[in-house]
């Protein structure tokens, strides 16, 4: 994920000084998103560049089942062929979330910590259907490698599909319907069934 370093900087920054350091001596355009002020050379350029990034976020997410923030940021930079200031990207990503273009799903990492993945708003019901399908499969098989889930959900494969399959399982892990065996394998929590049987 290092190829974006060869791209030129997008002339958007969260301070006038940073914008100047990108070779822009004027900063007449500015907008505030989620408590962050974004500066550009002019209002027209600000609007155009923010639209470009938002459109790229929309397009990149739509092309993938789910992405982590770092992968999304990398893909968006590839799409617009510009390097984007991290805080600018965060503010524009927040705006896309606020407007309901994309959504964020919390998942559990192997350590138990929460991490978030991004999906396109129009993929929400598909994401939920996949959760249901994987719970059913996990309940039946008891142990599922991420590879098997990827082969079932994304039979055509492709970049990012293994990660998207792992996001489905990591979401189930946060809900407690799956547990990590290791980073590549998940299991059904057997004690949960015992608990239900014991109390029913």
């Amino acid at each position, binding site marked *: 994920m290092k190829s974006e370093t060869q791209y030129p900087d997008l002339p958007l920054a969260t301070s006038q000084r940073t914008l100047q350091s990108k070779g822009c001596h004027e900063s007449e355009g500015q907008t505030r998103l*989620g408590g962050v002020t974004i500066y550009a050379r002019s209002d027209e350029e600000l609007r155009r560049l923010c639209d470009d990034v938002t459109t790229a976020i929309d397009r990149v997410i739509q092309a993938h089942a789910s992405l982590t923030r770092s992968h999304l940021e990398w893909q968006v930079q590839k799409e617009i062929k510009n390097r984007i200031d991290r805080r600018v990207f965060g503010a524009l990503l927040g*705006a896309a979330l606020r407007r309901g273009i*994309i959504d964020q799903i919390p998942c559990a990492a192997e350590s138990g910590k929460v991490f978030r993945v991004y999906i396109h708003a*129009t*993929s929400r019901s598909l994401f939920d259907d996949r959760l249901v399908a994987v719970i059913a499969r996990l309940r039946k098989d008891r142990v599922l490698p991420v590879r098997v889930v990827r082969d079932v959900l994304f039979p055509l494969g492709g970049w990012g599909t293994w990660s998207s399959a792992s996001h489905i399982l990591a979401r189930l892990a946060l*809900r*407690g319907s799956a*547990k990590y065996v290791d980073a590549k394998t998940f299991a059904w*929590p057997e004690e*949960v069934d015992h608990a239900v049987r014991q109390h029913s």
Partner: protein
Amino acid sequence: MPSGSILERSVLLTPSGWRRCGNKSTELDVIGLDRAGTPQAGRIRLELSSVRSRVAFVGTATAAGEFAEATRLLLAAGDAVDLRQVIATESASELQFETFRIDARPQGSPQQAKSLWEELQALSATADPETAVIRCAEQCTGKANRAPAAGLMLVEDGDTTYLVVTRRAIEESLHANADSMLLAIANACFHRSEENRWELEADSTLLVMWLLDALRRAGIRRSAQYDSLQHSCFVFIDLVSTDPAPLGPGRCAFLSSRSSNEIRIEWSDPSWTPVVSGFLLSPKTG
């Protein structure tokens, strides 16, 4: 007749506690405020619509709710705002919302028990009609097989602790010790010790409202916090030194990717305003 738009998922304050609107047309008594700001029960009519709306989320320090995009809420100054507009312009933090919570412990009803039970089942790792098993945010080592409250039990599976809750325990608690039951569930399932706060997913607004009320009645000062002004995956219930005021700025407002059926809510007295998810609903204009 005053009317407004809310969602199946919106939460009403009834004399017997918080409940989701649900997916049926019906009439019921809910709590609202009269012109003098006095809480009064009033009759409302809910009419299920076939119109789907994206879920519009809005949160303050004292309330978090799910509404229709077309929902209008009352502000502290008496003006009304359209949520669609608030979200589009990212203006929630500039607006002072008026919120309301009930002081008296509500006497639960079968409807409240059903609503709360459905909420807990939705959070479950697995559930049957009588039992819900909810993953605890943290491992509770050494507490396995112990009961944090009557009718609750902790079980462990590897590194994960689960709370087992029965429908019967919830029903019985609503007639006796609903607050302590809910606080025990929250402590077991949602507490993160590193941050000393509870973390509930943002669509758990029914539980959030029950918990904020239960905490207030227990004399514990807590405030709702969010990931950011623009979006939140969670509602964080944080320990604070002073009780947040019921009049306060919006802290987060966004459109979710989820959608829900719209509900038309009607009431007869134009000087009375129903409480929905802790906010005051404003009637549609025109």
